[in-house]
C-alpha cells in the first residue's frame, strides 16, 4: 500500500472514530468494572460500552489484523498500527477485553481447522462468546505439564474429569479452552487442547476471593463432562504445542502491563504534588527502566512481525514487564501516601489504587511465574546446561 493510500486510510479512520466512538468511551476507565468483556450475559457499567463494542465488532476492528473471513478487519500491519495510533489519539477505550482475542484466537488461527475457525473466531470478534482458560491445576501450576484433568476416549467424544484452578472469570465465561490429559504415559506428550461450553453438564465453578477484595479467579470442576472430539484443536496428545504457542501470546499480553496506561501516570501525578527527594529518585530511576522497557516492547513487536524474535523472548517480556508493573504500583502507593490506603474513597479513586496495587502481586505468578520465565530464558536463550 502506498503512503498516499495509508494517509487516506488514516483520514477515514480518524473520521470514523470521531463519529462513532461515544464521548464516554474516550475517558479513562475507573477500575475493572468499566472493562467490556461481552459474552452471552454481558455486564455493562454504561450502555455506551455495548454501543462501542458493537460498532467496532461490526467492522472487525476489535481484531483489526485478523482475516475478514473470520470476523476480523483484514488490515495490514501498517493499517493496524494507524488504527491503534488514531484510537490512542482520541483516547478511545479498548472496545472489548477478551481472552478469545489475546490468546485463543491466535492459537486457532495457527492450529484450528477451517470449521473451528469459522465457528469460533467471528463470535470472538463480536464479543458474543466470552472465553476462559483451563490451564492451571491445584498440583500443576508452575509445573503446568504435570496436569491431571483427564479426557477419556468415548468414541466420538471425550469424557472429561478433574479440577482446574486460577481460572480467570470462569464463573462469567461461556466457553473454556482447556488442557486435558489424553495419555498418562507421557508428560508433555500426553496432553490435548479442547474447547467446550461452560454450560455443559458436569461443569461447576467457585470464585476465589483475593487480597484485593476482588474475585477474578475461580476453581473449576469437571464431572464427566462430554466433549465432542471435533472440539479438539490440533492432534490428540499434541496439545502442548498449542499451549506453548498460546502462552507466548499470553505473556506478550501480560508484559504490556509494565507500560502503564495511556491516560497519565498516577505515580508521576503524585510525584508532581511533591514527594521526598529519596522517593523522587526512586521514581526517576523507575522511569528510566519503564521508558527503556517501552522501547523494548516496540522492538519486540517489530521483531515479531518480521519473524526475527527469539521464540522464548516472550518470557523475557513477561518477566520484565510484570516485575516493573509491581514496582510501579509500590511507588504509586508510596507517592500517594495515606490517600491510597483508603479502601473506597474519592481520594483513592474509589479503591482503584489499593486494589490495583494488590492485584499486581499476581502478575509475576499468573501465566508462568517469574522464576519459570527465568528458567526458560536460561535454558532456551542463554543455552545454560541442565
Amino acid at each position, binding site marked *: 500500500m502506498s503512503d498516499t493510500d495509508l494517509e487516506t486510510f488514516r483520514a477515514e479512520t480518524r473520521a470514523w472514530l470521531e463519529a462513532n466512538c461515544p464521548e464516554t468511551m474516550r475517558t479513562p476507565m475507573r477500575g475493572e468494572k468499566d472493562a467490556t468483556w461481552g459474552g452471552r450475559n454481558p455486564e455493562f457499567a454504561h450502555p455506551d460500552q455495548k454501543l462501542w463494542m458493537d460498532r467496532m465488532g461490526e467492522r472487525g476492528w476489535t481484531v483489526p489484523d485478523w482475516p475478514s473471513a473470520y470476523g476480523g478487519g483484514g488490515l495490514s500491519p501498517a493499517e493496524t498500527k494507524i488504527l491503534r495510533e488514531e484510537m490512542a489519539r482520541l483516547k478511545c477505550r479498548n472496545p472489548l477485553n477478551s481472552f478469545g482475542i489475546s490468546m485463543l484466537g491466535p492459537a486457532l488461527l495457527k492450529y484450528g481447522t477451517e470449521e473451528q475457525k469459522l465457528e469460533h473466531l467471528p463470535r470472538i470478534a463480536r464479543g458474543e462468546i466470552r472465553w476462559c482458560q483451563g490451564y492451571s491445576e491445584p498440583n500443576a501450576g508452575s509445573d503446568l505439564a504435570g496436569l491431571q484433568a483427564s479426557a477419556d476416549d468415548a468414541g466420538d467424544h471425550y469424557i472429561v474429569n478433574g479440577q482446574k484452578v486460577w481460572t480467570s472469570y470462569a464463573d462469567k465465561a461461556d466457553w473454556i479452552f482447556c488442557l486435558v490429559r489424553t495419555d498418562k504415559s507421557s508428560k508433555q506428550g500426553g496432553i490435548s487442547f479442547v474447547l467446550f461450553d461452560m454450560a455443559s453438564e458436569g461443569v461447576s465453578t467457585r470464585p476465589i476471593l483475593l487480597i484485593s477484595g476482588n474475585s477474578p479467579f475461580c476453581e473449576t470442576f469437571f464431572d464427566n463432562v462430554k466433549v465432542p472430539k471435533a472440539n479438539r484443536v490440533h492432534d490428540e496428545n499434541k496439545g502442548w504445542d498449542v499451549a506453548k504457542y498460546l502462552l507466548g501470546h499470553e505473556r506478550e499480553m501480560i508484559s504490556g502491563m509494565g507500560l502503564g496506561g495511556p491516560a497519565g501516570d498516577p505515580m*508521576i501525578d503524585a*510525584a508532581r504534588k511533591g514527594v521526598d527527594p529519596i522517593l523522587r529518585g526512586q521514581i*526517576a*530511576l523507575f522511569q528510566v527502566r519503564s521508558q527503556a522497557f517501552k*522501547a523494548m516492547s*516496540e522492538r519486540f513487536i517489530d521483531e515479531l512481525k518480521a519473524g526475527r524474535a527469539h521464540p522464548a523472548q516472550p518470557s523475557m517480556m513477561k518477566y520484565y514487564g510484570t516485575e516493573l508493573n509491581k514496582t510501579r504500583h509500590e511507588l504509586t502507593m508510596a507517592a500517594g501516601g495515606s490517600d491510597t490506603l483508603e479502601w473506597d474513597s474519592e481520594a483513592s479513586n474509589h479503591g482503584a489504587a489499593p486494589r490495583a496495587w494488590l492485584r499486581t502481586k499476581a502478575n509475576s505468578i499468573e501465566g508462568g511465574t517469574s522464576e519459570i520465565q527465568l528458567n526458560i530464558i*536460561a535454558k532456551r536463550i542463554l543455552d545454560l*546446561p541442565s
Partner: protein
Amino acid sequence: MPLYLTDEQTMLRDTARDFVAEHAPVSHMRRLRDANDATGFSRDLWKQFAELGLTGILIPEADNGLGLGHVEAGVVIEEIGRNLSPSPFLTTAVAAVEALKGTPHAARWFPGILAGETVAALAIDERAKHDGCIEMKAERSGNGFRLTGAKQFVAHGHVADLLLVAATTEHGTTLFAVPTDANGLTADPQRLADASLAARLTFDGVEVDADAVVGEVDQAPLARLLAAGRTGASAELLGVGGGAMDMTVTYLKERKQFGQLIGSFQALQHRAAHLYSEMEVARAAVLKAQQLLDAGDERAADAVSVAKAMTSLATTLSVQEGIQMHGGIGMTDEYDIGFYMKRARVLAELFGDANFHADALAQAAGY
C-alpha cells in the same frame, strides 16, 4: 522505522565486529597498559579505522564522509566497547564531528579526521560529576576571546589536535575550537582506573580568535554535542556489558564445581537470565535514542537520557555479576573480566551518570 538493524546496518556491524576483534581485542589494550603507553591508544589503528571509512561515518557525503547516522556510529562503537579498544572514535568521529558539522570548522578539521590523523577532545567537565556547570570564563579580548579556567576528565586531552572547549560568555555558553599548542594552555594527563588517559587542563588567559567560536556566541551547540556523545557512550556501554555477559555465560558453561557445570545451578541461571533481560532492555533503549536522533525527533532528548541511564545500570550489573560468577579468578589481573568492570565505571561517569539522567527525566516530567 522498525526498531531493529537493517540489513545494511547489520553488514556494517559485522564488518566492524571482525575488524575490531582482529586488530584491537582486549589483549591490544592490555599491551598498551603494560607498556605504560603515553598516548593511550594506537595511532596506527586510528589510521586503519580511517582507511575503512569509519572515521567519516557521521561526516556528510558533501564533505567526503559516509553521511550515515547515529545507528551506524553506534554499531561501530559497540564493537569498540565489546573489545575494550582504546580509541578516539567516540570523542572525535562522533561528538566533535556532530558539533562541527555545518560550521566553517568542518572544512578545517574534517579532512584530518577522515584521514585518521586528527584527534579531538572534549573539554566540558569542571568537577568530579558531570553537572552542566561551567565556570570557565571566555572574555572578549581584541578580535577574539581570552579563556581562563580549568577542565577535567578530558579523554585524549594531552594528545589531541583539537580541543572543543565550553566556556561562559556574557549571555550564555560558547563552544570554542582551540588548537592544543595555544599559549597558556597546560595539560596534565592522568591515568584512570581503566588505564585510559584523561587530562586536567588549565587555561591561563588562552587567547583565541573570534573564528574559533563553533556555532554562535552564547549559543554553544552543546546539546547536539552531548546528545551525540551520550548516545555513543551508551552504545559503548552496551558493548562493554554485552562483552562481559558473553564471557560470564561462557564461563558458566565451562566451569565445574561439586562435579557439575555451575551453569546448571538455578541460583546462577536466574541471575544470568535477569542480566540478559536488563541488557536487552538497554539495547532497545539505545537503538530508540539513535533512531530518534537520526530522525531529528523532539523526543530524542528524553530517549538519550533513558539510553545513557539504562545502559549504565545494566552494564554495571553485568560487570558486577561477571566478577562474582567468575569467583576468585575474576579478581585477578591476568583475567580480562576486571578490565570490563573498570571501563564500565569510566563510561558510566562520562557525560552524566544514571542519576544525572534520571534527574533530567524527572525534571522533564515536572516533578
